[in-house]
């Protein structure tokens, strides 16, 4: 039923429907197996947020509230009051735009042990501005007490999902589709909350990257090496609590920093890095690659990347520009 061509190539695939259970769905099943109190809640998006396997295995612990995101979050809060550990999914745009007040007042304010999962991160949807979560991290970072996780590849998505559900307290977990190229080595990488990972060391400059831009950051660092520039790549998967120390350590030994994120440059990674650097008075340039105060567009991920400059080339160009500024 979900392996046919129509699903692989049609709107289903564009909206994130998996051909088979993805990294999020696998991790959810694993946690649900060992913890009977884990309950899945969605707003008519089980199919598109990788919850079909959970629904099939645990029908009694699956709640579909229909297209009603405010109620999704309220019901999750109520289920938590009844002693369950809710995992609530919908698209990032609906969770953070439509249901924001509910996430703030019924989840964050009293540290409810609920995992809020936002699908279609950044420009990872062909469905245009209504479905592209380009400001979700800004919203969720601003909520007191909210943990905010933005995984970079399917390996980290799976690890972070298991972590998020087990973590006591409110978590916003940004969901990848699960078909992104792998960046991390599953045999060595272990997701750790609040810890940035240095994927590549360098002494001239650094790229601090998150989500699908981590892959581009690595490629950009390699391209810049050909220019004779030694460029470090720091992967950030936890926007909050933010690993300011890792950024400070990097900023102390490189000439400038480029941030690269699958999000608006307002309120996400660029903001977190800049806040960390400014707050200790480090004299270093930081320039962002991301959605430059604009919405995404209809069309494929590649099209969106090109149109909005979420590319390896844009990181390289930004870095070269900064190299010139620093040299002058």
């Amino acid at each position, binding site marked *: 039923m979900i392996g046919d061509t129509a699903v692989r190539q049609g709107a289903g695939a564009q909206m994130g429907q998996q051909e088979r259970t993805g990294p999020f769905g696998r991790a959810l099943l694993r946690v649900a197996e060992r913890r009977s109190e884990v309950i899945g809640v969605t707003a008519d998006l089980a199919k598109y947020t990788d919850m079909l396997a959970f629904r099939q295995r645990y029908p009694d612990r699956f*709640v579909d509230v229909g297209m*009603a995101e405010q109620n999704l979050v309220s019901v999750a809060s*109520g289920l938590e009051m009844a002693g369950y550990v809710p995992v609530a999914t919908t698209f990032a745009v609906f969770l953070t735009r439509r249901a924001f007040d509910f996430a703030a*007042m019924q989840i964050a304010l009293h540290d409810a042990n609920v995992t809020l999962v936002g699908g279609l991160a950044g420009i990872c949807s062909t469905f245009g501005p209504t479905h592209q979560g380009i400001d979700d991290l800004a919203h969720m970072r601003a909520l007191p007490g909210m943990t905010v996780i933005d995984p970079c590849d399917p390996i980290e998505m799976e690890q972070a999902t298991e972590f998020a559900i087990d973590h006591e307290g409110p978590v916003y977990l940004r969901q990848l589709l699960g078909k992104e190229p792998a960046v991390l080595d599953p045999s060595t990488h272990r997701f750790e909350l609040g810890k940035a990972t240095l994927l590549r060391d360098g002494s001239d400059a650094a790229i601090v990257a998150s989500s699908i831009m981590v892959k581009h950051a690595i490629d950009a660092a390699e391209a810049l090496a050909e220019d004779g520039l030694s460029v470090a790549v720091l992967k950030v998967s936890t926007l909050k609590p933010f690993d300011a120390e890792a950024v400070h350590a990097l900023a102390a030994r490189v000439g400038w920093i480029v941030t690269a994120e699958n999000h608006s440059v307002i309120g996400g990674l660029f903001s977190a890095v800049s806040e960390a650097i400014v707050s200790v008075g480090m004299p270093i340039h930081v320039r962002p690659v991301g959605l430059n105060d604009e919405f995404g567009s209809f069309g494929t991920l590649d099209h969106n990347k090109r149109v909005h400059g979420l590319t390896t080339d844009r990181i390289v160009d930004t870095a070269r520009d900064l190299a010139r500024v620093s040299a002058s």
Partner: protein
Amino acid sequence: MDTHDEAPSISELSAHAWNIRRHVVAMAAGKGEGYVGQGLQAADILAVLFGAVLNWSLDRSDDSASDRFILSTGHYSIALWAAHAEFGLLDLDELRTYGADGSDIAMSTERGRQPHVELTGGSLGHGLGVAAGLAYGRRLRGDRGRVFNYMSDGELQEGSTWESAMFAADASLSNVINIVDVNRTQADGPLVLEVEPVAEKFRAFGWWAEDVNGNDVGQLVEKFAECAEVDRPKALVCQTQIGFGVPLIVDRERSHFVRVDPNEWAAVSAQLEEE
């Protein structure tokens, strides 16, 4: 029931209601302002709930049989604090700090900060969904206890209320009892957007729903008993009069958030005692 092995009489419940009104007036007089009109109007409903309907114990043990109470309209906290004091959950002395800086006896509710408060209710249209989720979870874990939500008529204007109403009916949450307090007043004055017919709306969503005089203790007792037998989510549409029991407050035009001159509080108290 834990707290009332023998059903209290109507006159006993009425006495509780009038005591709640006295606490409300004392709190509002201390503060010099507040939701005194709503506190007065809600006294009968809360007296019946805490005195006769809710299965709860003073230690608020969260066992399978105990009922849970969610105050969706956090602005009515004045009435909640008064009822809590009347039924032994709060010291009467604590009511004196109502609305004061640093006091937990605040002008609205905040879960996790204030004693015995199950919901942060100041942002409206949140309670019914949380009640529905709690009721769903309680049914799943085999609890016999019910979940009561108390909302204002203004909250019927919030779309989220109807998301939750649709969900509760679809999930056949017969353990949800929704008290809708219809005082026909909101922040901008008399209802700026018509909400009636309220009961018909809930029935159309698949609920059992009936109107009741929310300032008539006898009727309230009767209707709560009647709806207990119904195998669907239930809405008790309580028609209330803002300021009930104090004509001076009833007559005040902008009674959503009453300001009473310092020299008028004695008259307010006197009117209350005349009723």
